């Protein structure tokens, strides 16, 4: 084997120079030298650098991720595979995961977001599931920043362009704007799929001597070093370093889904893995490594889009819409028949063996021969130094404001404004099983489990301003809000996936944010019996030393046994009584009210008491099941009055509220205390609900009645729904216009 396989000929750099260029730290490179007992060649170094990148190895976060509860009655497969798998009864399973495509979306918004959606779908159908729902959690820079509009435009078009074409409904998501994302937008996409519980496919190669089949699109020079790129900070010159942009082909993805599911149904598949970040490298290394085997690939057989691709380029390419499967003995022809039917390129490119090595051949030469152990098991694991992150102290006092004006301001603010402009570009109804989507007036998206009375409820949540103010409480809150959103539609919350977006973990304060947010999330998951079954970490979201607000996005899935028991907040009727469930102490620290009305971003965020959260939520879910609660909305951003507006506006009927508490009106209207719900009940059942609540120890207060066409707070303010709706609907289309 030549020791300089495929290194660019003209340069005189040493392997150590290349190591640092590829993002390996000197001590990491030393480990490679020690393990190999020799210098790696260029291809081998490339393989190490991507496998040991933050993106593939989770080297900064891995030891903290272990704190998450990952098991539970309904968990079939937790983190570690391409996606998490939960049992939804009747022999069926739900498979889901969330993933980021932050850096690519900043560089090329349309393709970055599109390929993000494509990538997360592959993680799900790789395990045997048909994708049935998509979600996206988006964080953009402040509206006045010169890049924001273009990024929003491209990201939204890219998400729609890909998901719509593949034919999976995009049913929910969230969108924030903040100066903290000016230099790094966040694009987190989640995919949810359905499979038979006894037909789930895994990536570990089961035995030696099996054919390794490549299928999908051809390999080009796209995104080489994408995985290491996404593990680096941006700086002025990152424009120069950017890899060839990956372009998504949703049409190819659609064919790939059908071909993959057909191949699986044919019984030919022994193991399978999509080619995601670090493409052929990570897929082959992981499949062989997990199986405790070895693998040999003949790179000349790889379907190639461009002439003269080097081994290095093929191994590091992140060309999209590609899969790697290990077939059962002698089943190659089943594969070829299916790939031909769907018009996909395919080739047997290698074989599993017992060598414990990955061996790559190219043009008659062995260009890489590495033991698999060090690549995955000995990947660096860091206990990075961390300090308590900056935290906001409780506020001494909160300024007041005229409630009606404040409401108009909040409803028209970028974070609260209707996102119609955006989700009307997403196909939300394809597959004809959508029960609730972004347009519905529902705290979670809902899709039927095809052909049954069951439904999945899905949501994505994080409140970055809380996490910034207190990573631990904010981490708890993100999980609690997701749990609450599922509860509010009548679903049993089952499990979550997450996407941990942070700055540079080598800075102790950032590492502190990561550690404390994970602590908070883990505690909430434990207390709410809401395990983590999959997830993704995106670090180094910084530009010129400025990190994003810590943003641990939670994607959650719940189950309804009978979708006729679902509820939304669009079903309020005149005459119904509004009951506020949960206690309002008057939490206004880091609230939307303070930020939007007074320009203050300060104060301790609302406390999350998980036992209260659980008690209140279980109580509300029972009211939904017994059909007592006719409409339900959780209280989150902006507090009571914006939630009442949502309910009134989605239902087309006014609400008259009354503040009978000792709280000042602006506090009553806008406090963001947790574990609260606004529910509508028939007048006749109102006192029964209050009695039941008292019995269960759940704070409940009758606060108003539905009717008319205004939203009012008696004696304080009254505004027509039309005026409020206009304020809420106007901002985004005007901004994008």
């Amino acid at each position, binding site marked *: 084997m030549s020791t300089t396989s495929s290194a660019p000929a003209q340069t005189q750099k040493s392997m150590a120079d290349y190591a640092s260029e590829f993002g390996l730290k000197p001590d990491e490179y030393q480990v490679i030298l020690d393990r190999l007992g020799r210098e790696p060649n260029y291809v081998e170094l490339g393989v190490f650098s991507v496998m040991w990148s933050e993106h593939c190895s989770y080297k900064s976060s891995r030891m903290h991720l272990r704190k998450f509860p990952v098991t539970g009655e309904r968990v079939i497969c937790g983190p570690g595979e391409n996606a998490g798998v939960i049992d939804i009864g009747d022999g069926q399973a739900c498979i889901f995961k969330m993933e980021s495509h932050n850096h690519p979306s900043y*560089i*090329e918004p*349309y*393709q970055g977001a599109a390929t993000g959606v494509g990538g997360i779908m592959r993680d799900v159908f790789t395990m045997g599931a048909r994708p049935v729902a998509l979600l996206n959690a988006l964080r953009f820079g402040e509206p006045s920043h010169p890049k924001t509009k273009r990024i929003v435009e491209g990201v939204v078009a890219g998400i729609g362009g890909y998901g719509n074409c593949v034919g999976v409904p995009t049913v929910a998501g969230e969108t924030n704007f903040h100066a903290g994302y000016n230099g790094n937008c966040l694009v987190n996409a989640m995919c949810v799929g359905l499979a038979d519980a006894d037909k789930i496919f895994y990536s570990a190669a089961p035995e030696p001597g099996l054919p390794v089949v490549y299928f999908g*699109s051809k390999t*080009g*020079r*796209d995104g080489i070093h994408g995985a290491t790129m996404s593990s680096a900070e941006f700086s002025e010159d990152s424009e120069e370093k*950017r890899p*060839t*942009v990956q*372009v*998504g*082909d949703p*049409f*190819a993805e659609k064919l790939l889904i059908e071909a993959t599911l057909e191949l699986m149904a044919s019984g030919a598949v022994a193991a399978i893995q999509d080619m995601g970040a670090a493409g052929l490298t990570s897929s082959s290394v992981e499949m062989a490594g997990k199986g405790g085997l070895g693998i040999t690939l003949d790179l000349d057989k790889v379907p190639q*889009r*461009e002439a003269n691709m080097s081994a290095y380029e093929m191994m590091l390419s992140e*060309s*999209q819409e590609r899969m790697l499967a290990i077939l059962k003995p002698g089943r190659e022809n089943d594969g070829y028949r299916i790939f031909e039917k769907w*018009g996909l390129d395919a080739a047997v490119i290698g074989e599993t063996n017992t060598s414990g090595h990955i061996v790559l051949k190219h043009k008659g030469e062995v260009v890489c021969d590495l033991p698999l152990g060090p690549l995955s098991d000995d990947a660096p694991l860091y206990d990075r130094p961390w300090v308590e992150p900056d935290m906001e102290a409780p506020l001494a006092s909160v300024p007041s404001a005229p409630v009606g004006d404040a409401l108009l301001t909040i409803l028209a603010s970028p974070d609260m404004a209707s996102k119609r402009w955006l989700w009307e570009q997403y196909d939300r109804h394809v597959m004809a099983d959508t029960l609730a989507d972004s347009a519905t007036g529902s705290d979670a998206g809902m899709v039927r489990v095809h052909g049954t009375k069951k439904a999945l409820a899905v949501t994505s949540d994080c409140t970055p301003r809380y996490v910034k103010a207190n990573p631990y409480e904010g981490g708890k809150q993100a999980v609690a809000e997701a749990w609450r959103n599922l509860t509010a539609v009548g679903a049993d919350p089952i499990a979550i996936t997450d996407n941990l977006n942070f700055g540079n973990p080598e800075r102790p304060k950032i590492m502190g944010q990561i550690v404390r947010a994970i602590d908070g999330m883990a505690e909430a998951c434990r207390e709410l019996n809401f395990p983590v079954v999959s997830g993704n970490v995106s670090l180094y979201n910084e530009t010129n030393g400025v990190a994003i607000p810590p943003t641990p996005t939670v994607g959650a899935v719940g189950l309804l046994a009978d979708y006729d028991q679902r509820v939304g907040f669009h079903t309020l009727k005149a005459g119904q009584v509004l009951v506020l469930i949960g206690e309002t102490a008057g939490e206004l620290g880091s609230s939307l009210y303070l930020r939007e009305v007074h320009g203050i971003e300060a104060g301790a965020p609302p406390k999350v008491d998980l036992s209260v959260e659980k008690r209140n939520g279980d109580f509300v879910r029972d009211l939904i099941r017994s059909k007592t609660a006719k409409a339900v909305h959780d209280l989150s951003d902006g507090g009571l009055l914006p939630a009442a507006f949502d309910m009134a506006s989605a239902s087309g009927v006014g609400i008259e509220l009354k503040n009978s508490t000792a709280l000042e009106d602006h506090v009553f209207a806008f406090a963001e205390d947790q574990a609260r719900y606004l529910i509508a009940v028939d007048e006749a059942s109102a006192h029964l609900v209050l009695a039941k609540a008292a019995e269960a120890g759940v704070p409940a207060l009758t606060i108003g009645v539905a009717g008319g066409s205004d939203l009012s707070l008696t004696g304080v303010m009254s505004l027509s729904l039309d005026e409020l709706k206009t304020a809420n609907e106007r901002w985004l289309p005007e901004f994008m216009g």
Partner: protein
Amino acid sequence: MKATVHIFLKAGVLDVQGKAVEGALNGLAGTAGWSDVANVRVGKVLEFDLKSTDKAAAEAEVKSMCEKLLANTVIESYRIEVA
């Protein structure tokens, strides 16, 4: 003056449309009596009228339009003709 701008994906960037059109043309070739085609690329073309009567100035102006708005230079390259 009249400007014509051609915009294509840069070499090396996957041209999904080109790939699909090539497949379709070659798929039909048999029945339609065409020979096979290769290297299909699909791009955009823009034509418009400019006030400027100076060719060099017009070219500079259209170049600036391409850089700022018409082309996405991360993945696309463009060619300008002014006449």
